[in-house]
């Protein structure tokens, strides 16, 4: 049986989408069947990276009960990965669609939760995929909590900013602990100087694990060359020897041990 992984954070701009895309491509390049879903309906991003302008069906339609999940997926196995299967589902980036998604009521959110929960059957059982990766919206809102509840594993991404650290701590105490979810922490954009020194690295890891009370999956340094590409490059496919992808390799291994 495959796994559903939700990538979440307290604040925006922590690197969730970059991690989600590259983790999906990394798994696919290992020969796995992967489905990447953009569940950030307030600020859809994957369509920009995969250069998708129109779709017959968006993930919004699946959650609205208009179509099956299969109809929302596009296959990028031939163009974006070397092996395996990479399917991607996009959120509608249109302003009207974003407005509509923010105005949903509680009954709709309850049904949306049911539809996300049923992905385990449709994607992992019926389509026999190995991994489904949810790229979620930041913070505590319906779409992200629905995604976390529906996932088998949650990865919380945090930066080193104090407001991010404090907010993430609170979110873990008040959300993740309550749902008893398998959760791991990824610290992203950590100062490279800290990670270069073994002592400093160990001290920081200890400090983070104490304050979050979560397994620390990885501390990823800030890579200027990744920032320079402006999100246009899928490093796991185009530059698999890049240290960022080597770090993600460890993340993929750690996920299995959660």
């Amino acid at each position, binding site marked *: 049986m495959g796994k559903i992984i939700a990538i979440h954070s307290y604040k925006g701009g922590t690197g969730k989408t970059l991690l989600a895309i590259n983790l999906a491509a990394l798994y696919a390049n290992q020969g796995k069947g992967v489905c990447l879903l953009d569940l950030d309906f307030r600020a859809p991003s994957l369509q920009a990276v995969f250069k998708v302008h129109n779709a017959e069906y968006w993930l919004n339609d699946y959650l609205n*009960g208009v179509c099956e999940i299969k109809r929302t997926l596009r296959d990028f196995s031939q163009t974006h990965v070397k092996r395996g299967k990479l399917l991607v589902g996009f959120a509608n980036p249109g302003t009207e669609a974003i407005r509509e998604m923010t105005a949903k009521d*509680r*009954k709709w*959110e*309850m*049904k949306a*939760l*049911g539809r996300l*929960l*049923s992905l*385990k059957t449709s994607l992992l059982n019926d389509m026999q995929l190995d991994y489904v990766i949810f790229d979620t919206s930041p913070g505590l809102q*319906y779409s992200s*909590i*629905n995604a976390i*509840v529906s996932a088998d594993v949650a990865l919380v991404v945090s930066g080193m900013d104090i407001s991010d650290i404090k907010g993430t701590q609170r979110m873990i105490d008040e*959300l993740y602990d*309550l*749902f*008893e979810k398998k959760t791991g922490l990824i610290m992203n954009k950590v100062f490279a100087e800290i990670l270069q020194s073994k002592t400093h690295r160990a001290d920081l890891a200890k400090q983070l694990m104490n304050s979050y009370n979560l397994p620390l999956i990885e501390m990823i340094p800030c890579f200027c060359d990744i920032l320079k590409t402006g999100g246009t490059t899928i490093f796991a496919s185009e530059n698999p020897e890049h240290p960022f992808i080597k770090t993600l390799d460890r993340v993929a291994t750690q996920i299995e041990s959660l």
Partner: protein
Amino acid sequence: MTLPRRLEQSSASILQKIKESLDRLNEKMEVMIEIQKQGHSTQSQESVPDVLDVMTLLSLPDHLRKTAVTLCKLDQATADEVAEQTKRARAVESGYLNQLVLMGYVKKERRGRKAYFFVDREKEEKEANKAWEKS
């Protein structure tokens, strides 16, 4: 078939019926206990349905949240099936599920001898579709 064999089968069938009756009695008693615990005020709210969304799940006490999340994942289930997932006793889960029924978050339907619990998403969907068609 020999007489002792027939008697043996008949006794087994009677014992099975007694066990099922006891199970049903047990469930009814659990509901009565819950009603007493909730007090008279809850009885008037019994028919008011509520929405089991994630925010409601967050607001539930820990023991009920575990049951409710498990039921959401299973879609519909007996107390036995929920207990299998939560690793708690069937009687405990039956009590919690009935409490969720009383709170209006979960529906209960008896099919044959088994009681099934479910989050009534279908009904909501049908109602929404009707409203959509009317509009």
